[in-house]
């Protein structure tokens, strides 16, 4: 049995020491997830706290310790979704973001640091950011996103498209990248 499996088993027994070990091992990664889904660090810390509370509460339901990574990430994503739904952000949609210039992966890969990517995501309106994250990073379908956010699948598609356009615009504007290579 691997260390992490052992830690998980002990967490299922409610051992505080094992919970601490689990937290120290996974908190940085989950903090990264929280930052992607929230507007600022303060809110991310709230989701981190709530996510671990929920994880320790439900860890007895985890049957396969090998699936722990995905299971834990899902918990944090759902906590972030709940946070978003509680706040019910409203915002103006600016259609001027519509942008038809395209980038190739080679253009941008390796030129933008992870922290800068996070900054770009943070500049998205909250719901665009959430839809984009759920679709592009987590791999949810529009139907699933619609159910989770309480919106229609059409709205989910529309938000995703606008999020992509905004990100593209910002990447080009910030890093001086141009449409190249005829990649589209």
């Amino acid at each position, binding site marked *: 049995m691997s260390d992490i499996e052992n830690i998980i088993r002990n967490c299922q027994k409610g051992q*505080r020491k094992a*919970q*601490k070990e689990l*937290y*120290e091992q996974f*908190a*940085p*990664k*989950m*903090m*990264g*997830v929280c*930052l*992607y889904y929230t*507007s600022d660090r*303060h*809110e*991310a*810390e*709230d989701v*981190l*706290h709530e996510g*671990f*509370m929920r994880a*320790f*509460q439900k860890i007895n339901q985890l049957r396969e310790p090998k699936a722990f990574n995905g299971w834990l990430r899902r918990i944090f994503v759902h906590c972030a979704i*709940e946070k978003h739904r*509680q*706040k*019910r*952000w*409203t*915002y103006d949609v600016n259609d001027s973001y519509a942008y038809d210039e*395209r*980038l*190739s*992966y080679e253009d*941008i*890969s390796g030129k*933008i640091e*992870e922290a800068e*990517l*996070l900054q770009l*995501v943070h500049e998205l309106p909250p719901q665009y950011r959430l839809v*984009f*994250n759920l*679709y*592009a*990073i987590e791999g949810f379908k529009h139907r699933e996103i619609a159910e989770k956010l309480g919106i229609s699948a059409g709205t989910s598609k529309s938000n995703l498209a606008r999020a*992509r356009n905004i*990100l*593209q615009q910002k*990447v080009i504007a910030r890093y001086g990248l141009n449409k190249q290579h005829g*990649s*589209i």
Partner: protein
Amino acid sequence: MDPFDHNIDRLFKEGATDFQAAPPSTGWDGLAAGLDRRQKRKKFFWLQMAAAFALLVTAFGGGYYLGQQPENTDLNIPILPVTPVETQSKIQSNEPSITSETESSASDPVESVVKPRNAERTRESQASKNNSRIEPNNTAETPSSASTTQNQNRDVVHEAAAITASSTPAKSTETNQAHSSEMGSASTESIASIDANRSDIEDNALNKEQGAIHDEEPTQEIASPFLQEAETVDAFSNYEYSAPDDILVTPAAWSIGLTAGPTSSFRVTEDVIYQPGNPNGSFNYSTEQDRPIQSWAANLGAHYQINRHWVFSSGIGYVRYGQEAGSEFTYTAPSSATGNVVSGQSSAGSIEVTDEGVNALIEEGSIVTSGSLGQISTHQYFDFIEVPLTTTYLFGRGPFQVGIEAGIAGNFQFGNKVVFAEGNTETAVGTTANTKSFLFTALGGLRLNYNLKSPIAFSITPQIRYGLESLSQTENFTPYSIGVQAGISYRL
């Protein structure tokens, strides 16, 4: 999929997958404290449920049990003199129904005594009666010097029909003889038996005079005067019974009542944090001080009093729970803050502030786009229709009674409001999100009753209400309140 879409998605997916950030330095400490709190709450919740259940079972079970009992089983009837039984008789007929055969057949017809009535005595009497029926020879344990003939006569009587040995009417032999004559069925044996019995009694009387039989004057215990008709007639002919006051009052009865009074509802909260809806704004603030919400409760109830002590009540009422969060609310916003949406998070759930609420605050200057603002409190109100089911045990007699009350209530939420309060001015700004529409609460307290003038009574009820579950669907928020209600009731 559009290749461009794929590229931008891929870029961010790869960037996010391995992205890590330092958690807060006090993250684990806060988490451990939260886990401890949750553990305590869980234990406390089950303790609460167990206590409430035990209380209800005890109260209702006790009330039901006592309701089945006679109002007063200890009448404390004094010892009474009984008219002396002058003679013993035996009656035998073709269908014998009465046989006189008591211990006193061999004893002196002296003054008998009626002992206090109680259930135990009654059982003893019944047992004695049964023994007499089954084992008639027991009656032959007479300390007298009865002759063989007398015993034989006695046996004949028993074999014929020995029924109510100890319940023999105290009638004279002559009366019995007359009765037997009327029936026209007295046999020679029965006459002989009566004669023998008379002889027996006369012998006993003679022996008593000589002090040969009893050193002490024997007494006859009539155990159950209510069951033994003949003795009852004699025993109570001169008895004046005076029932205690309380046996004649407080029969089972219905009454209706109306009570109302102030309550103080509170729940110590965690920090309440507000954030602007517009990312450009920044007016985060938090508060740690919480105060009770002053409110009130009312109830229109029906009460069923099953005896002097136990009352069961139900009805319909109103109660407001709430909390004041942010007694030192201070808001500071930079000039760039132009947001018109405010959201908050409290221990009772997420606070949704409506645009109308915010606009009202802007108009009155409670929210400004720059500068600071102090001393605004946030109040959260939750209004419920309450349907209680309670039981009360009352102590004391007379017009004034004190009781202990406990029960459970179902609560249906119909009001949910968040207000910003400055002094006495309250401005509604929104609602608390994710609250339950139905909630169970436990009720407990005292009841002070004073009968003003029958059938009207006045009552004062100091009461505690405590939620048996969280009001919030997402947070652990158990509301409770302390209050005093006063009212009147009318006995139907």
